[in-house]
């Protein structure tokens, strides 16, 4: 637990000093929402709940891809990864710390994206956003779990940054379907019970990829 907290604290402190990742992710989310408004030309208001939900999830995938790449490449760039692997912390702990760091970056970016969405799509800050929060949190957790595992692979392959979305997006499809549907319902003002099926799929996805990452991370990280 000590190693987990230490690695996570280090990542967050690094970020709080430079803040490049967070600023990049927030700016990217803003850009994606602008692009979606131009591309889909929504009328605004609750009638566009589906479009707004779709835009949010596109932003989530982009910010997740970049966030996960950042938390792992920041280490390997200056040989820190080797030092971390030599330290007594085991690989599963390293995975958890990196995954949580990616999750936090994604959550910040998502929060910004939600605020921007409310403004652009002319919605209200009300109970609907509270219902949206668990959906987005589950989606971000699932993507962080998946992308942290895959970023360890793509970081060691030439043109790996192209490979990461190619691997991550098809794997993320079930969570994407469930998340877009649930977010659409939440934004349209439906109660939580209306999309509980989708939440179950999101939870199943998160459990699957958290355990897969926890168990398999030791096979993809390392210097041999």
């Amino acid at each position, binding site marked *: 637990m000590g190693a987990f907290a230490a690695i996570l604290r280090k990542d967050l402190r690094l970020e709080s000093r430079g803040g490049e990742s967070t600023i990049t992710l927030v700016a990217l989310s803003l850009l994606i929402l602008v692009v979606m408004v131009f591309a889909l030309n929504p009328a605004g208001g609750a009638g566009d709940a589906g479009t707004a939900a779709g835009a949010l999830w596109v932003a989530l995938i982009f910010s997740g891809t970049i966030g996960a790449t950042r938390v792992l490449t920041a280490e390997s760039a200056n040989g820190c990864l080797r030092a971390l692997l030599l330290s007594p912390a085991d690989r599963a702990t390293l995975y958890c710390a990196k995954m949580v760091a990616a999750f936090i970056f994604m959550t910040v970016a998502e929060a910004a994206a939600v605020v921007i969405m409310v403004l652009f799509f002319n919605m209200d800050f009300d109970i609907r956003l509270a219902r949206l929060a668990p959906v987005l949190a589950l989606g971000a957790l699932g993507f962080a779990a998946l992308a942290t*595992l895959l970023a360890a692979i793509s970081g060691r392959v030439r043109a790996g940054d192209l490979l990461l979305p190619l691997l991550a997006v098809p794997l993320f499809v079930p969570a994407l379907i469930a998340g877009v549907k649930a977010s659409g319902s939440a934004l349209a003002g439906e109660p939580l019970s209306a999309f509980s099926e989708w939440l179950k799929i999101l939870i199943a996805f998160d459990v699957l990829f958290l355990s897969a990452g926890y168990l398999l991370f030791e096979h*993809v990280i390392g210097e041999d």
Partner: protein
Amino acid sequence: MSRNTINSLGLLTLVLMVAALFMVFVYVPTEAVQGIVQRIFYFHVPCAWVAFAAFALVAISGIFYLWLGQQVWDDLGYAAAESGMVFCTLVLVTGSIWARPIWGAWWTWDSRLTTTLILWLLYCGYLMLRAMADDTPQVARFAAVVGIVAAADVPIIIVSVRLWRTIHPAVLVTRQGTHGLEDPRMVATLLVSMAAFTALFAWLLMLRFATLRTRTRLSLLARELGRTRAAVGDL
């Protein structure tokens, strides 16, 4: 895997394939509702079966590779993924050709079509990884992990896609009921085609597996040559 085994498997495939073609085009009666185009079914379904079996094999050999660390499992997984990809492509293409006259559209977001497409994309990523990472020594472990994760994802994909389609309004008639195999000759034809495609898959798998074994031997030999050259230089 000797060349003889592969060749006899090839011969078996040829015999079964000729039998299957004969049954599809001569023996089996034409289906009443869909007409002659329903005969695509007898090759479409075996392709799907083989593609799914191949992808299961990728995951199984991935597990064995991570467990035992033997190169054979990595070669088997790679061979299964590549030949599975060939059949998965055939499923999508023949399905599309079949859907056009029957459903009036090349593509519909039907749950089975969507699942197959996502599976195709998953293994596209897997093969891209293998193509991009062939100069890194860890590629076998990377591929094993991706293969396992992809297979583990399949149940959730199926559930979510099915739920997605039932909530969406059904625009087109679903495939259910349109090919009830009421005639025993249809069942027999399907079974022979299944056998033919299973043999074909096994043959292609063995061919590809043999190339990969050669490649493994080649890299071992290259290393040995380097060592021997160094020994000559030392003298």
